[in-house]
């Protein structure tokens, strides 16, 4: 296990029973997640990314293989997971939703309020604390879900397409926000996305997965200095290359 890794995944396999026999979803997935780094999983739709992140989040056991963690605490308590769909509690206000992790952990409410307030300001939600999710726009709800994820005080954030459903403008603003907050907090992040630009903009390491059953096709280190500009020639050409790689995998793998 490399010294700077927060998490090492080794030969993970997983299959699910279906009416027409077992379907392999993961066929020996191995990669490392660097400490305090940003790792992005990218691959064709339906390739098993969600299964993989659910295993990472401790919600699903792998059939074989192992996940070695250097994160403090056992794995169930070291990961904050944010799935694709809206998982806010609609009967709680924005602030009430942000306080859920502290409530579950039994942490002090005053401290949690202070932290929540700071993040509401950073994510541009100050003044919206008393609104219910139904009163927030899609972008605001995702920001709130991200705030809740950060407030979970876990070393590793596992984000499954957190910005997937947003319009391009909201999305790019949120990418910038996410990156700054991530840099300030020093969390380890695993992101799932379909967006190659997002991957190159935010990641230290991009893990390219094959079509189902998923294997790691390639691990790409992204070494561009931060903050990265979307228009930087390096990023634009990298985008082309990555896109070609993603598509190439559909047939020849």
């Amino acid at each position, binding site marked *: 296990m490399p010294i700077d890794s927060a998490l090492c995944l080794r030969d993970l396999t997983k299959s699910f029973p279906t009416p027409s026999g077992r379907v392999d979803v993961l066929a020996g997935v191995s990669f490392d997640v660097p400490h305090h780094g940003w790792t992005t999983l990218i691959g064709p739709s339906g390739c098993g990314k969600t299964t993989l992140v*659910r295993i990472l*989040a*401790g*919600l699903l056991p792998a059939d074989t293989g192992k996940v070695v963690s250097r994160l403090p605490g056992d794995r*169930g*308590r070291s*990961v*904050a*997971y*944010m*799935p*694709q*769909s*809206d*998982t806010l*509690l*609609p*009967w*709680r206000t924005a602030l009430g939703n942000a306080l*859920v*992790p502290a*409530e*579950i*952990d039994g942490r002090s409410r005053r401290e949690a309020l202070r932290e929540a307030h700071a993040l509401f300001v950073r994510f541009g939600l100050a003044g*919206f604390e008393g*609104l*219910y*999710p*139904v*009163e*927030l*726009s899609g*972008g*605001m709800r995702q920001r709130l879900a991200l705030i809740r994820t950060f407030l*979970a005080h876990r070393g590793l954030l596992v984000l499954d397409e957190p910005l997937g459903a947003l319009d391009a403008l*909201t999305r790019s603003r949120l990418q910038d926000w996410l990156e700054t907050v991530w840099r300030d907090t020093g969390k380890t992040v695993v992101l799932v996305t379909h967006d190659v630009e997002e991957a190159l903009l935010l990641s230290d390491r991009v893990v390219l997965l094959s079509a189902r059953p998923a294997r790691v096709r390639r691990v790409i280190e992204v070494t561009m200095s931060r903050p990265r500009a979307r228009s930087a020639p390096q990023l634009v050409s990298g985008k082309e290359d990555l896109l070609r790689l993603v598509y190439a995998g559909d047939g020849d793998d």
Partner: protein
Amino acid sequence: MTDRRTHWVWAGLTLLALAGLWEAGVRLFHVPPYLLPPPSRVVFVFFSQLPLLASHAGATLAEIALGLALGTCGGVLLAALIFASPPLERAIYPLIIASQMVPVFAIAPLLVVWFGYGLWPKVTVAALIVFFPIVVNTVDGLRSVNVETVDVMRSLGASRRWIFRSVRLPSSLPSLFSGLKVGATLAVVGATIGEWIGARQGLGYLMIQSNALLRIDRVFAAIAMLAVIGLSLFAGIAMLERYVLRWRTPRQGIKEEG
């Protein structure tokens, strides 16, 4: 808001028109009042005998309220048990559904034999009918929860109990309220039927007595009183629902874009 108000206006107008037709028909064809009194007569009796109606309504209302409360508490409790324990679900749920094939009214006379002419046979009938829509709706509600929300809470280290109390129970409230609204109307029916079978007071009792005396105007006045009770109950529950589920609709003017 305006929509709801115009709704009521239209319903009121329709009711008035129907009453007008009834009044005209009765007068035109000289229907004797011991067969069908004109609505004006019913209104007159309703107000002139209001103290009598009110005292009987009090008894009926008590039965309805107790029946609704017991049926709801029992229903929610059983729904939670059914939800929490799959073996229990297999053992009980089909029986609960099958039990609905037995008309509760068929056992009402038995209840009189067992509990006498007092309050409890009526409360039991009302509670038994209320029970079913509450159980079914609450079980549905408990199951309707977003699986990924539960995943997130589990990954945050939430206990099963916390998830039940803070995620499943609140998310079952909308269907529980649907069940309550059906239950409230059924409770009125249950209490009335219970009184028909055997009672010393209550609107159902008054109806039977008045019927025997061919005081059909008073039968209609009692029916009108039951309608008032049923509607008030329904409106009260709807108001409570709007308050408890206020998170479901955005407050005016604060839905934010962007």
